[in-house]
């Protein structure tokens, strides 16, 4: 048998397999007309949810169901749209997966929950609430809004969040922030690693806390911050040229804690861990 024949057979087999798999998939679409600042919630037991903005005053939901062991309960009450994956008898985490793609007006506040899959929300100017157990959370390009996230051990990535009221709590998941600024940014994890890369804004309060997870902060030379970093049992490493503070609420221990300011010290930054390592780096 020639190579060409084998490739051809493999291609046919692949097509048959894909066709067989997709034969059990069901695609559903829901459309709702809403007013200004609608509230949209999507509760998915298993599977990804993607929320993106769209022009107009409609909420458009595309859902792919991977078996007949799950159905979607969709409901609109006034300016509120609720969608929920409803598990049926015989469902398992594998066969009850639903993939949601949701388009909402940019001023829609969104609540998203799933055990697994990627939970992705982007380009909104309203509040975002996300809960996921092991789900991977990605939030980007959110302005002037509350961003509240809770995960068990799912990693969280925040990118380009401006003027946000950001609260992230992940028990075991890593939390990564790129260009995230307050007025308020509170990040906490028990064993996850916390990474911040940004300028800490102007005039905000930032609090990054962990138990055993490391905390890394990379800031530009022109940052305007008042930093307090303490690790009870871990190290504090710094290569940023902070100015020393003369009046502190505690006596800094070299290698374990650090207190300093940069620029006009506009933003307050508190980094605290029990046994993790804190590292401050200049970008």
């Amino acid at each position, binding site marked *: 048998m020639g190579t060409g024949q084998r490739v051809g057979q493999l291609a046919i087999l692949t097509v048959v397999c894909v066709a067989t798999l997709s034969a059990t998939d069901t695609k559903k679409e829901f459309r709702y007309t809403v007013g200004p600042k609608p509230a949209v919630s999507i509760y998915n037991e298993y599977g990804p949810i993607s929320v993106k903005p769209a022009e107009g005053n409609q909420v458009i939901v595309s859902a792919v169901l991977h078996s007949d062991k799950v159905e979607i309960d969709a409901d609109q009450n006034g300016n509120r749209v609720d969608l929920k994956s409803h598990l049926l008898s015989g469902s398992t*985490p594998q066969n009850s997966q639903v993939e949601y793609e949701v388009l909402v007006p940019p001023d829609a506040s969104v609540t998203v*929950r799933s*055990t697994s899959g990627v939970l992705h929300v982007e380009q909104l100017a309203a509040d975002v609430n996300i*809960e996921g*157990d*092991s789900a991977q959370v990605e939030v980007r390009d959110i302005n002037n809004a509350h961003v509240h996230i*809770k*995960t*068990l*051990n799912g990693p969280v990535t925040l990118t380009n969040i401006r003027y946000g009221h950001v609260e992230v*709590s*992940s*028990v*075991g998941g890593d939390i990564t922030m790129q260009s995230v600024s307050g007025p308020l940014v509170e990040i*906490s*994890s*028990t*064993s996850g690693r916390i990474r911040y890369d940004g300028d800490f804004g102007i005039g905000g309060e930032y609090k990054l*806390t962990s*138990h*055993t997870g490391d905390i890394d902060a990379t800031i530009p030379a022109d940052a305007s911050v008042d930093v*307090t970093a*303490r690790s*009870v049992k871990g190290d504090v490493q710094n290569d940023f040229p902070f100015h020393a503070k003369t009046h502190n*609420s*505690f006596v800094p221990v070299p290698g374990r804690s650090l207190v300093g300011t940069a620029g006009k010290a506009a933003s307050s930054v*508190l980094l*605290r861990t*029990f*046994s993790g390592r804190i590292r401050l780096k200049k970008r």
Partner: protein
Amino acid sequence: MTCTEFQQVLPDLLEGQAGGESTAHLQSCHACAELVADLRAICDEAQHLPLAEPSDRVWANIQRTLEAEGLVRTPMQAGGILFQPSRQWSPFKWLAPISAVLALAAGVFVYSNRRPTQVAVNPPVSASLPQSQAGNSGADLDDEQLLAQVAPPMRAAYADNLKSVNSFIRDAQQDLEQNPDDEEARHFLMDAYEQKETLYDLAMNRSVP
């Protein structure tokens, strides 16, 4: 006579003091006839239950406790006010053995029907708990109850993270004990509890249908 009116004179009927009207209703109403037959069967069975009188010491202990709590006054006779066996006939006397039998039957029914299902659906949670959490404190019991509500595929992950959070709380408590005037240590302990709150929130939200 309606069924409701009949049920009001049911105790008299069971005591053998039925009037003609209730007897007529009993003959014409199949449902009430079945009810009376069932109650009579239970009464007959209840008569065979062994009767054990609690000892005087038991009554005395109960009386002393009630007196100590100010719920009763000093006894007026040697046997105590609790031990005053009434010889007066009560039309509701028959309710006691019936209630006992019904409660026993309900208990047996519930136990025999639920036990296998619970074992099949929710294996003993303590088995999935880390050894360090299988204690008897209130917090540990709360944790066990929480884990019992978590779906089996996620239970191990929750148990692991619960262990981490409890460790966080312990460390933060020790840190605060060593630095009682440190305001940040106090906040740190609050952060640790908030982590536990996060975990509980997630688990509870998951368990809500």
